[in-house]
């Protein structure tokens, strides 16, 4: 086969996958919009997700150039002050994996495999707009190697690629100093990328205030979930769409949606959902949790409650003080399992159980997502020693295991209510 034929074949494959990709998303959108608790105020979030995640769409919507972000440790406020739209790369489609899977290890995080496939679709593209740059905090092994995998998968995008070296020990002074250096390097990178030589201290403070305000609205939504009023499906549709629009518009839409959540689900018991991220349109696990009658009132998924790490407050309003506050919040405040000294994360899950805020933990592991898989062993042991219930469910993006997952969830529910 000559190069021309290969390119032709790849082009046809991408077109075919793109059509199926659209179908997969449309099916989930139809499912969401046909739910009895769907309301017009939620349409904004569903439509954001349905419209796709290619940089051109996001750039047109936000009026900002888009920087792809591989993990959540890079301060969003910093992107904002440089007039950029950070966009966390998640992959949620099963079918997109077909474009990347042949080049990748058989057992690999399906979320990133899907994301790599979706990048092909973006590039095959629609308006030809590319991410202005890539920023990758070195978290899990898959993210550390993402640039190599992009090349292996033939994602021929060559924008500036900036790595943030993430210290995996959070509580050491040296680590925090090291991370602050990385934040300064990110600032330099963004400065060179945009040509903005100097940012005003006041602009950075304003940007931080904007995210504080957003956090305030978001925390009210979290409270509604804690009380059982905001169903997880809608909570996650809202959080999944966080990076798809300007943060102020998103925040305003959340505020508008808050009054919708007034009805507590009839079923229970209450559970904590921990583990690997869940992203649109692969909301399989959320639908199964509902079907099994489990009410998720808390979670620690980075595509959900941890989508951004909370408000950053600061007494020292010098530029250094602001950057230091951002560095601390995004490093020490981060509850990603990739850190080595991570008791805070485990305690964050266990502590609410002592207050009867939930009756059990459902731990979701995407096959190949090693940090969560490994961490589940510690968590299971700690929870069971304390007499709390725990179930781990390993899955991927296929639907063939839905029945067996449902069986487990139903039995788990029985064990919680008895």
């Amino acid at each position, binding site marked *: 086969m000559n190069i021309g034929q290969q390119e032709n074949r790849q082009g046809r494959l991408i077109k075919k996958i793109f059509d199926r990709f659209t179908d997969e998303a449309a099916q989930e959108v139809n499912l969401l919009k046909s739910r009895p608790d769907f309301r017009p105020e939620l349409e904004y979030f569903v439509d954001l997700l349905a419209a796709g995640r290619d940089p051109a769409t996001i750039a047109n919507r936000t009026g900002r150039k888009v920087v792809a972000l591989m993990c959540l440790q890079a301060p969003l406020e910093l992107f904002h002050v440089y007039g950029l739209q950070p966009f966390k790369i998640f992959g949620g489609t099963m079918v997109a994996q077909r474009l990347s899977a042949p080049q990748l290890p058989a057992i690999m995080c399906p979320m990133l495999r899907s994301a790599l496939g979706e990048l092909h679709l973006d590039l095959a593209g629609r308006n030809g707009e590319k991410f202005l740059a890539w920023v990758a905090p070195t978290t899990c092994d898959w993210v550390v190697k993402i640039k190599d995998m992009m090349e292996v998968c033939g994602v021929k995008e060559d924008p500036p690629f900036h790595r943030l070296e993430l210290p995996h020990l959070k509580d050491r002074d040296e680590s925090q100093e090291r991370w602050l250096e990385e934040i300064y390097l990110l600032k330099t990178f963004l400065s060179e990328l945009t040509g903005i030589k100097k940012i005003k201290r006041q602009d950075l403070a304003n940007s931080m205030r904007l995210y504080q305000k957003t956090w305030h609205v978001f925390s009210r939504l979290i409270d509604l979930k804690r009380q059982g009023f905001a169903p997880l499906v809608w909570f996650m549709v809202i959080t999944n769409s966080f990076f798809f629009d300007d943060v102020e518009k998103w925040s305003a839409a959340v505020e508008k949606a808050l009054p919708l959540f007034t009805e507590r689900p009839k079923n229970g018991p209450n559970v904590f959902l921990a583990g690997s991220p869940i992203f649109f349109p692969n909301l399989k696990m959320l639908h199964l949790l509902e079907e099994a009658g489990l009410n998720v009132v808390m979670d620690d998924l980075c595509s959900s409650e941890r989508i951004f790490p909370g408000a950053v407050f600061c007494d020292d309003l010098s530029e250094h003080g602001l950057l230091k506050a951002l560095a601390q919040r995004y490093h020490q405040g981060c509850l990603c399992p990739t850190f080595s000294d991570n008791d805070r994360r485990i305690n964050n899950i266990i502590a609410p159980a002592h207050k009867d805020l939930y009756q059990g933990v459902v731990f979701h592991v995407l096959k190949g997502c090693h940090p969560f898989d490994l961490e589940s062993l510690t968590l299971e042991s700690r929870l*069971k020693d304390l007499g709390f*219930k725990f179930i781990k469910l*390993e*899955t991927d993006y296929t639907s*063939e*295991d839905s*029945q*067996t997952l449902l*069986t*487990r969830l*139903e*039995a*788990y529910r*029985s*064990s919680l209510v*008895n």
Partner: protein
Amino acid sequence: MGYKIGLDLGSTAIKMVLVKNNEITWSRKVPTAPGQEALAMELVKGAVSECGLTEADIDQITATGYGKKLMTAAGLTVDEISANAHGLHLLSEGRCRTIINIGGQDLKVININENGRIADFKMNDKCAAGTGRFFEQVARILDTPLETFGELSLKADEPLELNSTCVVFAESEIVSLLAKGVPKERIIKGLHHSVARRITHLLGTRYASKEGDIYLDGGPSQNKGLLEALEDELLMEVKVLPNPQFTVAFGATLSVN
């Protein structure tokens, strides 16, 4: 009046029990095939007819198993893990604390408390290794009826060390062993130990019952060779009730209580 029906619509067989006063009065199974509800209703009609009952005598139909939601005639549905726990608790007269259930396409390990409620459980992931489907496949490869596996296994002195319980890879391994002239008995014994080790790993230390008994149920539990291998690997006695395929269907009828 006073009869209850429990239907367990599994991946390889549909099992039905007719129960009165917590006693099984009639039981039967048929292989799973397309049209599960019709097959199950045939069983119901058979029970009613053979026992000289009318439909009015049936107070409740409860369905469990993977096909439970296909049973529109069922007044109640219950998950098979809870049904298994209820059933074995009553049939073992409260002595059971751990259940090892081998189904058509899954392995389950269930810890139950003194009231017959689920304390904890584990299941195999998306892999049919060591399940009923695995045994069926091996029987085909060995061209040997599955019902004779137990007897053949007990005839072998030493089990052969087998590497795979994967349905796909076991085939090439077994074919290779047969080509080398290894007797079927040793291969079968090796398979039983291989599956028993898999179950032991699933069971883990946390599941090993410190008090109460361990019971094996599901279709393959009638295989005495597997039972022997399991006891050997676990270093514990493993009990099997009469008619172990009907425990889940029986438990389903109790779950409503």
